[in-house]
């Protein structure tokens, strides 16, 4: 236990060191005119900008919109992906029929869809949610499908011998078994959900972090662009840590 604690602490220390070194190098590069502040801004300016946004409260409504879109995208995309993943894993015939279509749809670059979604769902949150869904869906779908198919044959036979119906088999074996896969993909899905929302906002919206970044870019305000990215990354890191804790709780049976 002791050795583990030491390791964890040293990992944290090194994580911090890498971050500090990167920011310091950046700051120094701009100070010594190795980097042009017009293109690269300055960490100190970026921090000041984030500070202003937070203290005058202007960032919150943008952040709230982006989070709402991402969360809706994550929920809806996961729901459809898990449902279809389950369905196709239990019905090999349908899986074979739909296989080429799923591959084709997954290959469509999502940026191409954004203008269509704007037309279909308007400038509000739903065009962004839709974009998020198209990204989250595939990750969840493939992982659920694989997770269900990967369920231990012996455990499945055992539970059937113990009297399980098809539905009970899903509930007691296939779903928990797929959960490992679903959770390992949740971190990826979370990132994708945010990407979908922000890209959607970037291409046409009146609020949201993507909108903030697009506005800053429109006025060559690189500080604003980097500040927007900083907020976005920080939020992903915090939510990701929450997911890790949830995962650790739900998968506590793992050795």
């Amino acid at each position: 236990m002791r050795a583990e604690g030491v390791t964890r602490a040293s990992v944290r220390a090194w994580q911090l060191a890498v971050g500090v070194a990167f920011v310091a190098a950046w700051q120094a590069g701009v100070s010594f005119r190795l980097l042009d502040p017009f293109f690269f801004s300055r960490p100190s300016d970026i921090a000041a900008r984030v500070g202003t946004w937070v203290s005058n409260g202007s960032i919150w409504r943008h952040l709230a919109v982006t989070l709402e879109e991402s969360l809706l995208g994550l929920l809806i995309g996961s729901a459809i992906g898990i449902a279809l993943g389950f369905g196709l894993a239990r019905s090999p015939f349908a899986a074979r029929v739909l296989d080429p279509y799923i591959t084709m749809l997954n290959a469509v670059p999502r940026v191409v869809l954004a203008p269509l979604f704007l037309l279909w769902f308007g400038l509000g949150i739903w065009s962004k949610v839709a974009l998020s869904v198209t990204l989250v869906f595939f990750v969840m779908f493939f992982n659920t499908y694989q997770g269900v198919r990967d369920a231990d044959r012996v455990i499945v036979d055992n539970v059937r011998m113990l009297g399980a119906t098809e539905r009970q088999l899903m509930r007691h074996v296939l779903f928990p078994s797929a959960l490992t896969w679903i959770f390992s993909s949740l971190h990826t899905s979370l990132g994708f959900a945010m990407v979908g929302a922000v890209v959607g906002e970037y291409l046409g919206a009146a609020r949201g972090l993507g909108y903030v970044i697009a506005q800053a870019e429109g006025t060559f305000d690189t500080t604003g662009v980097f500040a927007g990215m900083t907020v976005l990354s920080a939020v992903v890191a915090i939510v990701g840590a929450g997911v890790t804790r949830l995962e650790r709780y739900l998968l506590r049976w793992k050795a």
Partner: protein
Amino acid sequence: MIALELDRVSREYQTPAGNAYRAIADISLQISAGSFVAVVGPSGCGKSTLLNVAAGLQPPTSGVVRAEGRELNGLNRRATYMFQQDALLPWKSVLDNVALGLTLAGHPRVSAHARADEWIARVGLSAFRSHYPSQLSGGMRKRVAMAQNWIIDRPIVLMDEPFSALDVHTRQLMETELLSLWDEGTARRTVVFVTHDLEEAIALADEVIVLSAGPASGVVARYPVPLERPRDLMELRTTTAFVELYKSIWSVLREEVVKSQQGEAVRAR
């Protein structure tokens, strides 16, 4: 009464190359209710296939399986099955694993847990009722699996080399516990115990069935085991009666083992 009957049962597989591989051929067996039968044979002789067919996990290619007189159609609902590999649900605690059969049958949670607790006590794991399988030793997991199987009151118990992965001493302990589970109560269950270990087979069973080397395994011989019960497994193996029996069954089994090894050597070439 006949608990389990196989009537000219054969089972074939498609090999990856597309050929039909006949695992067991024309096996007819009648196993009377309440008896403990061990099935031995060289590795790859279709012992597991025999058990899977009896469990209804695999339909016979030809022939009929009857459980308590009724022809099997799908899973054998009169039997439980204890697997060679770990088959516990890793995401369920010991308590939930043992209670599973009752939960699936729709028993209310409280009474299912109460009965599961009794069974957990019977296999000596009360202190571990909230543990997950990954936190238990191999022997403990086997005890949980036994409780999980025996809690649902089915007259036939199928066991596929359940203790083969355990060390010798743990194994002997588990065999003793299995016998005491089987022996207590009024009505003994019918046990079909597959093993490749002849010593284990004789020590446990009323009757030892020897299968021939595969492919197309069949029954070579059936030996009654007239050793007295209850048996002391610590001492039994050195008694003259045991050794005599072992010698006579081994003389038949050895031939099959040699055949199976020769077959493997040919296939390897």
